[in-house]
């Protein structure tokens, strides 16, 4: 999943290890998310968003997977 984690980390002058420690995950997890090899769990995505005071959608982009909202049917 595309994300801006690396940019955000650079903006806040954080190393992968420092960010991993703040989020209580491994540095490998941060690296895998940044390289778009691994999609974080929902709790971790919320933690990342709260840490940077952003929403999940501002950090992660799901490529606008086609789905019709429920209220659009009526």
């Amino acid at each position, binding site marked *: 999943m595309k994300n801006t984690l*690396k940019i955000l*980390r*650079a903006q806040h002058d954080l*190393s*992968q*290890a420092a960010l*991993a420690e703040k989020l*209580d*995950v*491994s*540095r*490998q*997890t941060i*690296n*895998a998310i940044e*390289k778009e*090899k*691994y999609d*974080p*769990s929902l709790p*971790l995505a919320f933690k990342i968003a709260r840490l940077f005071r952003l929403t999940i959608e501002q950090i992660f982009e799901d490529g606008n997977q086609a789905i019709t909202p429920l209220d659009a049917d009526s």
Partner: protein
Amino acid sequence: MNKYSMAHNEPNEGRHSRDGKYSINVLYWAILWAISHLASTALTRWVVSDMNVIKWLVAVWPIAVSIGALRHFMRYLENADELTRKMEFESLSAGYGSGIIFSVGYVSLESAGMPVIFLGSTAAVMMSSYVVFRFRAARKYL
């Protein structure tokens, strides 16, 4: 290399300290299990000859140790970093599936003429497949 562009591929580098702590416990228990198994087999074969309580206790001892090892492995999984847990689950699933395919598939091969093999071969297939798929998962995600 600056701190914003770290690209580490070493399987053990950058692990969560908790993973290291719990996996070391699993390793100690696995070693204890292997030693117990070898000792128990040797004792029941060559030392304790009669079928009595002592022989049963010697035979049951490695099973008790293996349950301890399994409990520590479960604890490791429960406390593992989420990426580590994903890699472990993928590898365990592949190992389990390989064992099932082997054990069920070999029945057909035996009926076609292949030699009868030791039942424990399935465990060897499961474990070796787990190791192969664990390396594969590390290459995929790290």
